[in-house]
């Protein structure tokens, strides 16, 4: 199967304003909580401001030796305690609110990403490494979480303090404020400039980490083969180069990003020096008093402190933004085309299938299926045979609408499947694929998967039919045995049997078997054969199989070569025709 190449959106191109807007949307979903957090922060800070106020008064009340006004001191200390308790409680409340907001947002994001993944066309998973998808849903979202839970408040409170202090400074001396008209734009310029330098580095850093994850996922799933070929060192070498890239990009982003904080602090210090210089000149010209210079400096510290703070968190925000870009880019990947508004919902179909002059290509210039036509009456069994690469699996993909044909029509019970809802169409099929897929869960859950109302009796019944019941009962926990992904106590053949049992439980009218029996040994197969025939009874069945015993039972055999049906008929008819099928059949007696 060749991939259909659709360019995914370049995640580095998304402008920051768009990222900010989209992040803001998430925050606004919790606007009341956010509002509450802002209020508690402000009140908490206010209470904190009163602590030095009262402590100042208390110290004043101490006065001189022997003249200490203890009542007053105690009273003021009492006020202080009230402020302290208020401050601590409010600060704690703010933290709790923020945790709630950020964890809700990240859980929502993860859910959205996952839901979107499941709406994606199946080839998305062929194009994208599972490890990279995992890295987006786990630590890219983690990074956003870390930033949301702290940086938003840092910035919100900064804005308030900065504006407040600036007003106070303007009141004291407009002339001295000139200093800030020089340094503040400088800070903005540097921060912006840095951001432009750092942004691609942070994007690269997230991307490389994703690539590393993709590689790790891929290689670890083949660890036994690596061992068997003794290639641990080679693979480790390849890992090292990816690891090097991941840590180096991290370092580069840090290297460039770490300049911002100290530089802004430096500019702030510079403005302090300028203020004292300019203040000195003003003082000599009798334009300002010493006390006012001190006050101005105090406020200027409060003014520049948050600016430095904001610059410090800039690196974190940048990394959160590039993480967001990766997450949003995934969310922007086009999902499967939505069903038509007036799409037919298939229900209890008879199971007649028709294909009319169907053409299909995964990649535009390479057609895989060339004008395929077939018709299957309800309850018939169609075997599709032919050399590998002839397009057998593609037919199944088209039937299930994993892909849509370039031209031609496919009908189920006379309905063009393009005008049926995907979900209802797929419900009409049950399917056993070449790749056995079981998930981490009990055997019961795995077999009942797909049939919501299946009882234990139903599961036991189908397991007996595929002859796996005895095996399941030999396990310590029977049907409650949890299957893990590389479970040692279960072979691929047994997995296959379970997926067959799963399909048997499904009461759909159409059945797809894709080399379903290729991993089942012949002894079991004989028994399965009977069960399978029972399963196929009354169902329209499409089988891709190499096994003679399966093919022989078919009502019609389609011999496929290079995307075209070259022969069709029953087993006997095809043998008598002495064509391609006959030569394939006779091959098994050679050698």
């Amino acid at each position: 199967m060749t991939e259909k190449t659709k360019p995914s959106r370049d995640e580095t191109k998304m402008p920051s304003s768009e990222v900010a807007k989209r992040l803001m949307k998430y925050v606004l979903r919790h606007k009341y909580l956010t509002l509450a957090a802002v209020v508690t922060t402000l009140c908490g800070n206010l209470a904190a401001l009163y602590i030095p106020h009262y402590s100042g008064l208390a110290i004043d009340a101490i006065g001189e030796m022997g003249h200490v006004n203890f009542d007053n001191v105690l009273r003021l200390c009492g006020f202080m305690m009230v402020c302290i308790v208020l401050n601590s409680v409010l600060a704690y409340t703010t933290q709790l609110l923020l945790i709630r907001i950020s964890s809700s947002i990240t859980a929502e994001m993860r859910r959205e990403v996952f839901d979107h993944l499941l709406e994606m066309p199946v080839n998305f998973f062929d194009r994208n490494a599972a490890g990279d998808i995992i890295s987006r849903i786990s630590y890219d979202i983690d990074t956003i979480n870390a930033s949301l839970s702290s940086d938003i408040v840092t910035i919100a409170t900064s804005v308030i303090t900065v504006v407040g202090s600036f007003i106070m400074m303007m009141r004291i001396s407009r002339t001295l404020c000139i200093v800030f008209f020089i340094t503040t734009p400088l800070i903005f310029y540097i921060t912006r400039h840095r951001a432009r330098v750092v942004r691609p580095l942070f994007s690269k850093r997230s991307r490389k980490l994703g690539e590393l994850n993709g590689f790790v996922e891929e290689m670890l799933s083949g660890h036994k083969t690596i061992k068997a070929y003794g290639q641990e060192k080679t693979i480790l070498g390849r890992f090292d180069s990816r690891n090097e890239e991941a840590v180096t990009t991290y370092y580069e982003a840090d290297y460039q990003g770490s300049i911002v904080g100290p530089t802004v602090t430096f500019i702030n210090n510079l403005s302090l020096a300028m203020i004292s210089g300019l203040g000195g000149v003003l003082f000599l010209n009798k334009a300002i008093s010493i006390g006012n210079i001190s006050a101005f400096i105090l406020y200027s510290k409060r003014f520049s402190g948050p600016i430095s703070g904001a610059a410090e968190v800039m690196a974190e925000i940048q990394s959160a933004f590039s993480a967001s870009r990766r997450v949003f880019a995934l969310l922007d990947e086009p999902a499967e085309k939505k069903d038509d508004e007036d799409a037919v919902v298939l229900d209890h179909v008879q199971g007649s299938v028709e294909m009319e002059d169907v053409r299909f290509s995964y990649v535009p210039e390479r057609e895989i299926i060339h004008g395929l036509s077939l018709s299957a009456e309800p309850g018939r069994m169609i075997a599709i045979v032919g050399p590998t690469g002839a397009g057998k699996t593609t037919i199944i993909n088209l039937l299930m609408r994993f892909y849509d044909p370039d031209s031609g029509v496919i009908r189920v019970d006379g309905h063009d499947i393009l005008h049926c809802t995907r979900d209802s169409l797929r419900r009409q099929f049950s399917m056993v694929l070449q790749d056995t897929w079981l998930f981490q869960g009990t055997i019961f859950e795995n077999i009942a998967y797909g049939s919501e109302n299946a009882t234990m009796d139903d599961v036991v019944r189908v397991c007996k039919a595929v002859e796996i019941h005895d095996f399941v009962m030999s396990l310590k926990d029977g049907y409650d045995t949890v299957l893990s992904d590389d479970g040692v106590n279960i072979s691929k053949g047994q997995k296959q049997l379970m997926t067959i049992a799963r399909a048997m439980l499904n009461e759909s009218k159409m059945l797809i078997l894709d080399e379903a029996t290729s991993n089942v040994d012949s002894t079991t197969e004989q028994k399965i054969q009977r069960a399978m025939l029972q399963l196929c009874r009354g169902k329209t069945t499409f089988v891709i199989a190499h096994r003679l015993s399966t093919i022989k039972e078919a009502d019609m055999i389609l011999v496929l070569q290079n995307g075209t049906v070259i022969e069709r008929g029953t087993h006997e008819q095809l043998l008598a025709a002495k064509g391609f099928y006959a030569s394939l059949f006779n091959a098994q007696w050679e050698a």
Partner: protein
Amino acid sequence: MKNLRTYLRPWMKMMIIGFLIKTTGTFLELLLPGILSRIIDEIVPAGQMDQIILWGALMVIASLLALIFNITANRNASRVARNVTRNIRHDLFDKALYLTCEKTDAYTIPSIESRLTSDTYHLHRMIGMMQRLGVRAPIITIGGLIMTFVLDPYLALVFLAVIPFMIIVLVLRATRGVAMYKKVQKANDKMVTVVRENSQGIRVIKALSKVPYEKNRFHGVNEHLKGEEVRASRMMAMINPAMNFLLYLGMVGVILVGARRVDLGLCKTGRILAFMSYFQMISRSLMAVSRMFIMYSRGMASSARIMEVLNSSSEKDIVRGTYPDGDPQYALEFRDVTFSYLGIRDNLQHISFRLKKGQTLGIIGATGSGKSTILSLLLRFYDIKEGAIYLNGRDIRNYAPDELRQMFGVVMQNDFLFRDTVAENIRFGREVSFEKMKRAEKNAQALAFIGELDGQEEYELTTKGTNLSGGQRQRVLLSRAFAADPGFLLLDDSSSALDYKTDAALRKALQEEYPDTTMIIVAQRVSSIKNCDEILVLEHGVINGRGTHDQLNENNELYQAIAQSQMGGALFD
């Protein structure tokens, strides 16, 4: 026992240099308020313009130096973090590759994967941040404390009284935090498992219309993860307010005791005032300390998870044994091997067979009868407890694992192809000449279809080779097994997706082109093994019958049943 310190040690010198630079930078920064107050309190009132410029210039120089030192130190810290992370990740991946199969089964792959990526990432962050915040904050805290002692030791003692409580809060929270962040990572593992399963099984999920179900399943693990995250963060959220509370409590104490001391004439108000300003300084740096502790807890949780794997037993620890030798005239021998994966029931019982060089053994039997297990034991993925396996007359435990395995060409069930060119998938890191590769492709019946691919051997496969059909994948895997002309070939169900014609050609090639290769072929089809020198029929881990095709066809019921089902009827049609 490896721990984080093992990895930090080589960079100690670098860290100490960074520490010194950072300290100098911090002191320079602390100098600035001093200069400033000097300018305002003394120089400006004196009206000396040149002095103002001089001291102002001094301030600029000091802050410039502070800038340079801080940037240098920060970059140094990043470098250390990079180096440590690089080494840990390297060792961890190395370990993951050499981990014994039992251990890998126990950890599960998604968990190892998340330790390699997510946990190392948290550790990386922690190492960087600790160096950056970990110098400044303690210096200011300790410096502030010393200054208070210099001012008034009695008042400083009052202040000091709250410090043990602070330490208790920090230590208690941090230790519990580590445990909680471990849970977060574990919940993360579960979330990753679901995402991984879904991206692997998307076709089945869609075919069975289980999308809503899977969404719901994810919702479950997602909410669980959220819950653990919230719990861990809440645990940490207390630190900062609690620290502040204790600090201010100390401040109130200082005022009260100070009032008493002033009243007795032991102290002056000015001192209390000075105390207050140090308070502010200490309080601000304590904020940074508590932030550090949060990061520390998370980093240590990740570190513990990483070290757990790093300290697990690996195949590298296996030393060559000194078991007695077998019979040197056989290339391969199983002598009364009994084996159990989990120690509950025997997966194989009393398996014995031997092959001379160039002979072929076929194994057939029901699924789960232990066919693949024989191959796993031969490759020493698992160690046997009873019996012995000999290769060229030597017990396989007397070989180093890599020495043993390089004698084999293997195609396993569920074997893996990876994202790279076809050529690289065949070569698989080995030095294989183009001619040899071509020959392997030819014998694996892969030459024709590879020739039709875009770029032929340079054609890029997707992950798991999903852009090839099942039969094509098997032929690439066979080419891989043939490429190094190994002395032994193990083929486990390696032609099940091939059509009869291709399968027949493959068998012919195996026979004619590899006469000196000793083979074990595990198959479902009788036709794949009927020409073998000996065939074992396995049932429930026991040898049910053995012999050639003709012998078994004569006297083994199980074999007859299998053969009948596949060819019997057809022969007479």
